[in-house]
């Protein structure tokens, strides 16, 4: 019995070895391949650019990997390690602080002329503890549009919009006065927060001002005046969520909407006559500040593991941060490019330029080190929509909630300072 088993084992082993020799061991990725991860809109567009011109970095092959959604990209990057992780990831700037802290990113150094292509505040977004981890690719910002068929003159101050809403609510069957169509109730709504007196932080001389914070009493009193009715409930001017805003605006049921620059073409396609402007502040002549943030192409620490760090750095400078690269890419993507040379290029559309102008009127950098911090109990991203819900939906006291909000933001900023 045992001899039979031994014999069979021998037979098997030899069969196995013969087969294994016949099959070529699993092919490994060739050296010099730079892997770029992107989300569902950027990925396919980057692929188109690479299909048209592949030699952005001589000697290297560039492979674009597209995730099904921005969330999926984030979920995968959170779990990525040296083996499967990308060399470059095209991501939101606010990933930088946590990813850098966790050792997933590697610093890049730009030459003077490369730096000169960008507005210095754009580097805030991509820095952690004084080191730069990527290059700005495109500008993400919002602007307010108004339906010129309904609104004949541009509002000068916030109150003008509220008055318009109250006056025409029933005649035009308005569902709201101003709503957020793009960017959500935290990021997209910052210009409304700011117009009413609650800025996430203030800038002074290109640096964050650590001594000035928003006054919760002023903000709360503005919320009461403009957004709440005499009964303390929402007067319907400003909905607490962004659901349906776009459809309602396009249906002519909302006169003012804050939209993202990436969706401008959807509105243009509808053939509307619309004007683009910042959200006017409660004081005439001032505007609510909006985040003029950038998406970055971030260099990962995995690139070094894969032996392509130098190539990946060159991809960032030769393609992602270059005028030629940004023009080629934005031809498909249609967002305002971040590089000055690309912004000046003739192929950039009026919409892209209009958003650029709106951003320069009242843009503040998006500083992940403050906004992502949980030090005050919640991040900016979570606490901002919570305020709208608490006050506009659940009818909580705007003063009390504003105090809490102010405390959270203040703490987040003061703690986040050390990460900048």
């Amino acid at each position: 019995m045992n001899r039979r088993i031994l014999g069979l084992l021998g037979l098997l082993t030899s069969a196995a070895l013969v087969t294994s020799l016949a099959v070529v061991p699993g092919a490994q990725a060739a050296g010099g391949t730079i892997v770029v991860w992107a989300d569902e809109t950027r990925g396919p567009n980057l692929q188109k650019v690479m299909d048209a011109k592949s030699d952005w970095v001589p000697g290297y092959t560039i492979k674009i990997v597209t995730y099904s959604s921005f969330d999926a990209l984030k979920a995968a990057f959170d779990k990525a390690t040296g083996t499967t992780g990308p060399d470059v990831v095209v991501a939101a700037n606010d990933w930088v602080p946590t990813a850098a802290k966790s050792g997933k990113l590697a610093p890049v150094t730009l030459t003077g002329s490369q730096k000169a292509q960008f507005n210095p505040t754009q580097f805030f977004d991509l820095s952690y503890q004084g080191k730069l981890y990527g290059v700005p690719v495109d500008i993400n910002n919002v602007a307010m549009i108004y339906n010129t068929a309904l609104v004949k003159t541009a509002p000068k101050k916030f109150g003008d919009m509220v008055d318009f809403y109250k006056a025409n609510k029933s005649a035009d069957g308005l569902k709201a006065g101003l709503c957020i169509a793009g960017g959500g109730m935290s990021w997209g709504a910052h210009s409304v927060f700011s117009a009413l007196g609650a800025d996430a932080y203030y800038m002074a001389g290109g640096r964050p001002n650590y001594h000035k914070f928003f006054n919760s009493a002023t903000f709360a009193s503005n919320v009461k005046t403009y957004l709440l009715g005499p009964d303390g409930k929402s007067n319907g001017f400003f909905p607490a969520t962004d659901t349906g805003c776009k459809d309602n605006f396009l249906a002519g049921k909302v006169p003012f909407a804050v939209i993202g620059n990436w969706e401008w073409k959807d509105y243009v396609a509808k053939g509307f006559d619309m004007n683009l402007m910042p959200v006017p502040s409660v004081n005439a002549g001032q505007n609510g500040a909006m985040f003029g943030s950038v998406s970055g192409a971030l260099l990962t620490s995995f690139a070094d593991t894969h032996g392509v760090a130098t190539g990946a750095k060159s991809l960032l400078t030769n393609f992602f941060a270059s005028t030629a690269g940004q023009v080629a890419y934005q031809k498909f993507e249609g967002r305002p490019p971040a590089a000055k040379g690309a912004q000046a290029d003739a192929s950039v559309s009026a919409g892209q330029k209009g958003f650029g102008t709106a951003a320069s009127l009242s843009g503040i950098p998006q500083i992940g080190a403050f906004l992502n911090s949980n030090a005050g109990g919640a991040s900016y991203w979570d606490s901002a929509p919570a305020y709208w819900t608490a006050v506009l939906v659940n009818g909580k006291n705007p003063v009390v909630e504003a105090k809490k909000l102010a405390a959270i933001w203040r703490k987040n900023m003061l703690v986040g300072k050390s990460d900048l």
Partner: protein
Amino acid sequence: MKKWARTNLWRHVISLGMCAFALFPLYLVILSSFSQTGSLQLTSFAPSAISWRNYKLLFNSPAIPYLTWMKNSLVVAGTVAIVSVIVGGASAFAFSRLKFRGKKLGIQLLLLVQMFPAILAIAAVYVIMERVYRFAPRVGLGTQAGLILVYLGGAMGVNIWLLKGFVDSIPIELDEAAKIDGASPVQTYWLIFVPLATPVLAVVALMSFIGTFNEFILARLFLVDMGNRTIAVGLQAFIAGQYSRNWGPFAAGSILASIPIVIIFLSLQKYIIGGLTAGSVKG
């Protein structure tokens, strides 16, 4: 008439009421799939205009490889269903019919292991498959083969347990007769048990199929390439976008994806009820 009302009217009232409850969301999805706007809104209960835009989008848009997703789902869920039933069936048979040391302990361990919340072991599974990817890129992270293996592992516990219930219900006299005829356990398994249990195996396979078809957390993490995704991952992306939710194509895609499952389900209903009572919970 009066008697009919007393005995059957209330039955119809309750049944119709519950049918309305069951059908309401489905009706709404069908409505949205034919609507022009991208949102899941209800303005009236009757369709104002029927538009095939969303359906056309699924089949014509190069950015939405709907048929490929569907095929992927069928391949992944089909493989998992068939293999897990074959492998699980064998173990279930052994647990039910063979005598060996440590049987009780084995089944208790199996039960215990299967209770671990799988979703939380995701990080660990990810790390393991990433390491596999290092030396075997074809079965590691990012491949359907790898995902199938992970699903198979996860399906084992439940399937063995479920199938054991079925095997227990097959009269033992049959295999004892076979034993007297000199059949080995392996022969008993293939010649007696498998033919008898085919309907039951089919039902368990179907349940695995539906469960796998539904899974999206792991699939989302594993399947990156557009052409690799399953239908759940592909469709979920429509309404999980960073900036917008697109209900129209989602509704159309969901309806088309549900049809085959619903048909199989309804035609095998009789067996499924038997399967459920034998001790399963929908996963």
